[in-house]
């Protein structure tokens, strides 16, 4: 018996212990696609819709996780309020689009729903950015000496934002009822309709992934950010104002999350549970990808997004209940961390 365990266990442990990031990613994708294929019972149209909704999830996750990951890498702060920014974006876009049952009622000035949505998204981005500056400059800056309290503070801010939203908009979920033109346009894939708006979000998400990567790789500010992730003190010693870079990245991260919420509102609606759901999934993404690694965040969001949609399809097909699909991100995280304790692209910490 002992021999048997040794014969199976040692090579298995060696395999998992020594898998390269590429190998682990390929394995994960193979598993997810396989399960998705089984769950759609070999039906190509269901399969492709599952994959597309997985990519849609991935795009939204990336919008929250990118800021979370860059902020953590640069400043060593895990911003627990990032999910609340996503939620604020969703509520602002909803309210702007529906002046009739909204609270702020400033959307009335623009009668055309398409233009109104565009302005609503811009508004959400601006408000998210402003709130980001306030949080970093006003609240986190005095606490750089006490990192434990920074962690606790962002948690407190997320509670305030959630309760503020509940006070203003109430706890009832809102569904999007004034559609934009691109949302009602459908295109067909294997005989199944898929909204053009969702495809647009997927394309935009992938474009942003590549865009931010290029920005980090090629521009001066991107190089500064990467250097800051490596060693912020050293960058300061070279005469660069790292604090200003901190503020910039923090603001961009919050604005990006708020943008994500705004563009997600047409199909997710605006609900108080949005923040916690996307925050937890994004935390799973960045830890799974390796804390502070940009590639890890990009690939992690695709993996978690696909797995999430696959599990949803699987729970429909096998009747195991929706509980499992809602905890998929955490299950994926546990799975990856068992094989690679520092995440896919993480270095020894």
């Amino acid at each position, binding site marked *: 018996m002992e021999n048997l365990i040794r014969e199976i266990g040692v090579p298995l442990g060696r395999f998992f212990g020594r898998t390269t990031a590429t190998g682990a990613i390929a394995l994960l994708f193979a598993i997810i696609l396989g399960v998705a294929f089984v769950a759609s019972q070999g039906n190509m149209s269901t399969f492709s819709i599952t994959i597309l909704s997985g990519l849609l999830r991935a795009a939204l996750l990336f919008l929250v996780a990118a800021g979370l990951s860059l902020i*953590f890498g640069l400043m060593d702060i*895990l911003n*627990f309020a990032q999910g609340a920014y996503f939620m604020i974006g969703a509520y602002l876009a909803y309210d702007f689009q529906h002046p009739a049952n909204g609270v702020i009622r400033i959307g009335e000035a623009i009668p055309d729903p398409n233009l109104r949505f565009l302005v609503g998204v811009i508004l959400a981005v601006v408000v998210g950015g402003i709130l980001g500056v306030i949080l970093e400059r006003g*609240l986190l800056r*005095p*606490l750089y000496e*006490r990192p*434990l*309290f920074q*962690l*606790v*503070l962002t*948690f*407190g*801010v997320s*509670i*305030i934002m959630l*309760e*503020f939203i*509940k*006070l203003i908009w109430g706890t009832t979920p809102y569904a999007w009822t004034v559609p934009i033109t691109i949302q009602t346009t459908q295109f067909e894939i294997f005989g199944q309709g898929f909204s053009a708006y969702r495809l647009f979000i997927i394309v935009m998400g992938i474009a942003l992934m590549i865009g931010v990567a290029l920005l980090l790789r090629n521009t001066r500010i991107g190089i500064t950010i990467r250097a800051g992730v490596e060693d912020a003190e050293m960058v300061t010693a070279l005469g660069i104002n790292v604090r200003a870079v901190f503020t910039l990245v923090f603001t961009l991260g919050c604005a990006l999350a708020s943008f994500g919420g705004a563009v997600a509102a047409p199909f997710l609606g605006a609900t108080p549970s949005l923040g*916690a759901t996307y925050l*937890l999934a994004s*935390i*799973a993404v960045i*830890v799974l990808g390796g*804390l502070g690694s940009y590639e890890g965040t990009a690939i992690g969001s695709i993996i978690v997004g696909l797995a999430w949609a696959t599990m949803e399809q699987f729970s429909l097909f096998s009747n195991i*209940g*929706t*509980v499992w699909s*809602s*905890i998929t991100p*955490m299950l994926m*995280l546990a799975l990856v*961390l068992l094989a690679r*304790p*520092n995440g896919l692209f993480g270095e020894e*910490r």
Partner: protein
Amino acid sequence: MKFLREHWFFLLVFVGLLLLPYLIGWLTGSNPLGVIRGDRYIMRGESTYWQSVMIEVFALSVLVMSYNLMFGFTGVVSFGHALFFGLGGYITGIMVQFSGLDPLLAFVLAVGLTVVLCTVIGLVIGLATLRLKGVYFAIFTLALAEMVWIYFGRLPLTNGEDGLTMSNLPAIIDPSQNRLILYYLAFAMFVFTFLFIRRLVNSPTGAVFKAIRENEERAQAIGYHTLRFKLFAIVVASTMAGGAGIIHAVLAKSARPEFLGVGYTVDSLLMTIIGGVGTFTGPIIGAGGLHLADVLLRNAQFTIGTTTINIGESWTFLLGVVFVVVVLIFPFGVVGTYQRWRANRKR
């Protein structure tokens, strides 16, 4: 005599809390046992009402003291402490309602099971994450608590969102029959937890806890196996939180998903910080003060100009604001600030 002189304040509070049900009963002319109706007591009157308020204060104090042991003395941040709090309640509920055993035996078994399960879960989370950066522990506790919260919110066995009502509680701790006994049980646990944490933190082990809080790498360099000490603190704190959860759920006579929710984690963080991080009496003052404020202000309304603000509705929001303000400008809390002020005056 020396003992009396040094500890007169604690002894006074101890005796005061011990006699509190009778004191309130005497002052308001109500029976601490309730109102006699036939051969049993009905829980009416001022004394029994304040007993239930104080039982809640004791349960919350134990929860917050356990949180302070991790956060204040060892420097480990958890965002899922409510997991253990709610788990204690759910284990009790499930054992009492579904085990089919004698209620008292089921309850005692539930207490044992809570201790075992909280220890195991605390150990597993700690072992999986404490070798890495501190933020991993915060993430994992948050994630696990949310997962268990979602799970119990949808579990048909415990009535999902509505929660599990405990109708089978053993008569001697049932708050609607013998609330006074539950009061003294909660009080005993409160006193025991306080003395235990004091003893633990003042012991050599406690000195290592504080060393880890101040600088973990240095504690390691001196030769301490810091992981073991952190694990120990987490296991003790989890078990205490489970115990507090049992008292809380027995008082509510139900186990509901919100006991596992982020609300109780926020409460423990907030009460620790307001009372004073890393002090012995701070958590008690934080828990007692905030809970009494909640009870007294629940139905209060303020009218400023034409807008009426209902304190009960915006309570969590106000707590959040207080939380951020305290973290920013009042980081030592009530007790910590008082100690600093006294130390300055002596000098």
